[in-house]
């Protein structure tokens, strides 16, 4: 029965994207600019630093937020990554993860707070977040390349689409999880809406917000390989290269690097969330 009437959605989308590329590419290039600056800053910075300094900073953070065990593990993991010849790729990936997580936090926390305080906003945001999380990355890789061209910046933008939802969701959850009597108490003592937010809701939602940050970091790392498909460098590229040339050894080395980094970043941010 569906043979005669069909919705030509594929054509519409193609036409729309082409129209965007033809007429508004400049706008998207402008949008790209701040991301590019941030990313380049991190990339150059991290690569300019002596590896020992980077390792020391990571181990100190692990020691401060968790303890000696994690610090020792972080030391072993980072040294291993270096010995595997992945240092430069790791720094590129780290720069991409940091850039996308910072941008996700910048937009995600305020959006999450708004969603936490307004049922209507939450309801309208939810399907968008669902779409961002479930749409296969391959679907939006092509339009992103068409609008932003290939490279690390396009990789970061694709990562943001995928990694943004958890921090929004968990920030909203955290704000909603604050006991209503505490909000009422603050109001009874004359707190303005802003004071309720700053002095009660955000501090109490902080562990949940940090759990969201942790999830966002993990999702960002899981995009590393996919981002490599559109020319982003970093730990994803040995994997993709290995895949294309059936060089299993090379792919596994890249994979090991990703896993080690993921474990270190996950444990550090998790202990940050649990500390308070």
């Amino acid at each position, binding site marked *: 029965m569906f043979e005669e009437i069909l919705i030509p959605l594929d054509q519409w989308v193609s036409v729309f994207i082409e129209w965007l590329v033809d007429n508004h590419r400049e706008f998207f290039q402008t949008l790209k600019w701040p991301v590019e600056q941030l990313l380049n800053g991190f990339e150059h910075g991290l690569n300019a630093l002596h590896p020992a300094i980077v390792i020391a900073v990571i181990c100190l953070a692990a020691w401060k937020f968790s303890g000696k065990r994690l610090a020792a593990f972080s030391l072993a993991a980072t040294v291993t990554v270096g010995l595997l010849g992945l240092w430069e790729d790791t720094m590129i990936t780290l720069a991409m993860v940091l850039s996308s997580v910072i941008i996700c936090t910048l937009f995600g926390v305020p959006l999450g707070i708004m969603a936490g305080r307004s049922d209507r906003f939450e309801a309208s945001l939810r399907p968008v977040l669902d779409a961002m999380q479930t749409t296969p990355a391959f679907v939006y890789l092509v339009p992103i390349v068409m609008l932003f061209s290939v490279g690390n910046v396009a990789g970061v933008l694709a990562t943001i689409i995928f990694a943004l939802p958890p921090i929004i969701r968990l920030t909203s959850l955290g704000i909603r999880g604050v*006991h209503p*009597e*505490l909000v*009422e*108490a*603050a*109001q*009874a*003592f*004359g*707190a*303005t809406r802003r*004071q309720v937010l700053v*002095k*009660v809701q955000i*501090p*109490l939602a902080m562990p949940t917000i940090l759990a969201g940050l942790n999830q966002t970091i993990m999702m960002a790392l899981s995009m590393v390989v996919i981002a490599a498909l559109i020319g982003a460098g970093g730990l994803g590229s040995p994997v993709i290269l290995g895949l294309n040339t059936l060089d299993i050894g090379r792919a596994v080395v890249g994979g090991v690097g990703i896993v080690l980094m993921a474990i270190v970043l996950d444990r550090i941010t998790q202990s940050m969330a649990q500390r*308070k």
Partner: protein
Amino acid sequence: MGTIRVENLYKIFGNKPHKALEMLKEGHDKQSVLDATGMTVGVSNASFTIESGEIFVIMGLSGSGKSTIVRLLNRLIEPTAGRVIVDGQDVTAMNNNDLVKFRLHNMSMVFQSFALMPHQNVLDNAAFGLELAGVDKEKRHQRAREALEQVGLAGWEDQYPDQLSGGMQQRVGLARGLAVDPEILLMDEAFSALDPLIRTEMQDELLKLQEEQQRTIVFISHDLDEALRIGDRIAIMEGGRVVQVGTPDEILQNPANDYVRAFFRGVDPTNVISAGDIVRDTHPTIVVTKKGSLRAAHEILSGSELEHGYVLDAKHRFLGIISSEGVREAIEEGRPDLTLSEVFLEDGDPVNLDESMQDILPMVASSPWPVPVVDADGVYKGVVSKNRFLRTLHRTEEAMNGEGAA
């Protein structure tokens, strides 16, 4: 300062309150409004005045609207209709800014679940209201320390709420309320979550604080013993309506309806009625300026039919009790120049006006003379006799049981 006038206050929960409001004004009750409109009546046509410096207890079963009405006073819940006027200021007409200022300075609140900020230590919790008001750190910490000391929590400043017991947490809640030095303190079932022993202790604490500095306290409770213990006046709520307002013994002796009577059934009236309620000035008094003469006292006593006389000083402060027999003996023994104080009866101690019948029962029962009653300054107010005591007991039992059956 701190007088609260509530005028025809209504709160209806639901999206179309006006139809429900009309129905209430036509005299329908909570249930029929719910059936007809689906709206829940929180408070219906409440009007009363809370005097400055009194402890006003609002009592009722759960669902009677007592927690709603206290939140209408500081507009944590917006009223549907009616007015709340505090010291001439219409709270219900305030804009957001004025309301915030009003809450910062005039009215603070203590919560059933304590509602302390778990991320702040005891000191910062106590200073919370002042922090919101923008008081600088040093000053607000000093005020908070004073408030914590008032509630007996000096030395606990650096602890966090979850390190404290329930009673201590509520002391912090109370300190937080006191630190802003409000004229009005709202207490929403403040002691209901505490175990009975601690609850009594906190009630005493509150009465002690009230003695030091009189504030207007609006106290919500479902516990009758609590209401009777601390309330200067009690309002009883049923189904969103205020059914009776009065002093404990006014309500006890003259309950407005069966609901109120049911509340008080099983209450020991001797806990509620105080010596001041039943004191009578029936006995001769002898006012002395210096020593007082035996002969004059003898004259006065023999002029009355009664056996005992009560000796007061020039300011009518109670000094002691004499018996006509004792005076006569002294005169007959040829020592008419004895002072009156030398013939005072032993154990002739007075009781205080606000002691309950329960408290004075042992004295009334054991002493051969009517027990003298004095006020806080020691001024003589009259006596309570065995006869009077028993008659009061009998009458209140009748009021509570007899009329209830009709």
